[in-house]
């Protein structure tokens, strides 16, 4: 009785992708939940292919949204795989999402980031945006006033009894900050090892707290 069946077309998407895509446009089917970036990307690509502009926008937001998995809050795909999410969002022309992902790339080592088709095929122009962002942040943290800590104790006339008036940030701490130049890194520095003198450590703690606050004020809160 197939003569009575409605017309059909074969598409190149697999069932998982097609189900997610159609769930986005059907008024009476729940919106899909993506626990895999691969499926989300395949669905986004399909939406782009069929010129489903609103679906691209809706799914694009899923790239940077925190999710709840098994009752626990899971980081967004932009946080777990920032370079790939940046490549995809930038390619799709999703401005806000690519900006969020670009900031998230500051937390990863670009040379050892997980390989993916999107990253491998990312235009050099996009990659340079990432590098420019990183350089901008690095230049800010390298500025003289952040690279030297004044050991002056507020409310006291003398400097730290260990004898230091000013102290350059130790190289190990510099490297930690430059590797991931974000305020989160600055806030989470392990200072005990680098500043054995407790009063110096207190001064360093204030210095970095101030630095992180200024960073967020200057660049906006980072991921």
């Amino acid at each position: 009785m197939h003569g009575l069946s409605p017309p059909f077309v074969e598409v190149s998407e697999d069932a998982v992708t097609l189900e997610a895509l159609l769930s986005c446009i059907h008024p009476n089917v729940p919106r899909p939940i993506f626990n895999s970036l691969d499926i989300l990307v395949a669905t986004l690509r399909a939406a782009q292919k069929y010129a489903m502009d609103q679906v691209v926008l809706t799914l694009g937001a899923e790239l940077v949204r925190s999710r709840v998995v098994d009752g626990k809050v899971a980081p967004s795909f932009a946080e777990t795989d920032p370079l790939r999410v940046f490549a995809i969002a930038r390619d799709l022309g999703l401005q806000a999402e690519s900006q969020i992902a670009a900031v998230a790339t500051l937390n990863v080592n670009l040379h050892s980031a997980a390989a993916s088709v999107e990253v491998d095929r990312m235009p050099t122009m996009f990659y340079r945006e990432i590098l420019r962002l990183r350089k901008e942040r690095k230049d800010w943290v390298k500025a003289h006033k952040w690279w030297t800590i004044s050991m002056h104790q507020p409310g006291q006339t003398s400097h730290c009894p260990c004898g230091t008036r000013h102290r350059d940030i130790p190289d190990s701490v510099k490297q930690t900050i430059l590797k991931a130049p974000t305020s989160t890194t600055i806030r989470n520095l392990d200072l005990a090892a680098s500043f054995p003198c407790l009063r110096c450590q207190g001064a360093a703690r204030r210095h970095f707290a101030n630095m992180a606050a200024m960073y967020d004020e200057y660049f906006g809160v980072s991921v």
Partner: protein
Amino acid sequence: MGPVLHGKTSPTFPSNQGDFILQSCDKVNFYVWKLMLQISSAVFGDMFELAPKAPPPDYSTSEEASIRARRRSRHSSESQPILLLIELT
């Protein structure tokens, strides 16, 4: 007769809910409404726009098809149907 439909049907998009079928590359059939695709996708919109409106030749002599054709031509010459919605504020 065109190509024959094979494969299983998606439980989320079952056969009684749709006037068009999208078949995935792994042979799962999704029943959808043309209108739904037409509104949300410019590609499907164009596809249905370009598709021949006349019924296939082997049906054209049947009574049902001629009734349908007449109904269609009547609809196209008249204005679109209007449904009055009464909203309580």
